[in-house]
């Protein structure tokens, strides 16, 4: 287990960076409002960042391992399908995760 000093430092760094990202822009909000580039990034960045996070959360999945990433593919597809159908974030997450747990512990165990 990592020692407490290291975790405290890590938490402090993440807390400061996160707070700075949320608070500093308010101080410079007027010049930002007029920047066309910032407006452009504000429209197009979120979708890309979220997709990169999907890929990151699946980075340990290997297509050459026994299950070939099939349970992940099924669960991601099910999550997306439920979300496109019902547009309910909670339902999509619960169904996707539940299905993945079932697949991993029984079907692909």
């Amino acid at each position: 287990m990592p020692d407490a000093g290291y975790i405290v430092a890590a938490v402090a760094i993440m807390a400061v960076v996160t707070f700075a990202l949320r608070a500093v822009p308010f101080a410079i909000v007027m010049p930002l409002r007029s920047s066309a580039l910032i407006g452009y990034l504000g429209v197009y960045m979120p979708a890309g960042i979220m997709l990169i996070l999907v890929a990151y959360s699946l980075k340990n999945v290997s297509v050459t391992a026994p299950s070939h990433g099939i349970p992940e593919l099924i669960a991601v597809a099910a999550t997306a399908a439920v979300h496109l159908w019902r547009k309910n974030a909670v339902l999509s997450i619960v169904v996707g995760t539940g299905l993945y747990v079932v697949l991993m512990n029984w079907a692909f165990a």
Partner: protein
Amino acid sequence: MVIDPASFSTTAVVDHDRRHSPEWRRALQASLPVGIGLVPLGIALGVLVVQQGLNPWWAMVFTSLIYAGSLEFIAVGMVATLTPLPYIALTALLVNFRHVFYALSFPLDRVKGRLARFYSMFALTDEAYAMSVTGDRRSMTGRVMVYSQLYLHAYWIGGAILGATAAQWIPENIVGLDFALTALFVVLSIEAVRAQSGFAVPAIAVSCALIARLVDAEHMLPIAMGAFVSLLVVRYHVTRRKVPTDA
């Protein structure tokens, strides 16, 4: 934490009969739908903290002080594997960079008092942003906004404590609960792709992610996000230059 505005109803606040109820109660009603999503994710985070071999107490520290859901999930793994601090700082910067855009439209001017403003900025999560900009303007006073943020924070910390406690009874051989994070990002991707136009930028992002994964799986997040944002800036300049010549 990250949930799209469109996926949560804030109709409770719009209800005329309820506009005269106390602000703390209006905030509770408005934040409840978001809380239904936050609590299970908090539980998943608490379980993950314990499963990664960290002391359950850290679940409470993470959720109280960092208070940025997607970063916290990633942080548990980074801390458990003793990731160097500069890399942790860079990851925090890239994962939460989207928050800088919230200042452009978050109505902080409605919040009165230094402490309340400080907290409101600290707790400006995706959900808090979503609630403030989608709720009914007249009933979403500064105080209702800050109360709502306090409730969302409480749901998140409470869920994590519940998860860290329950993790002792969840059989170790049950795997896959961490898929809640992937599912959350899938949901947010769908909402975010809908909010912009076309599939060119999402395709660029997926390509960046896949290439970064092949190049260096350990550092794929900063590589992919750095490359993606750089390409987005290039695309902005290219498409802007094209406009006058096309016209």
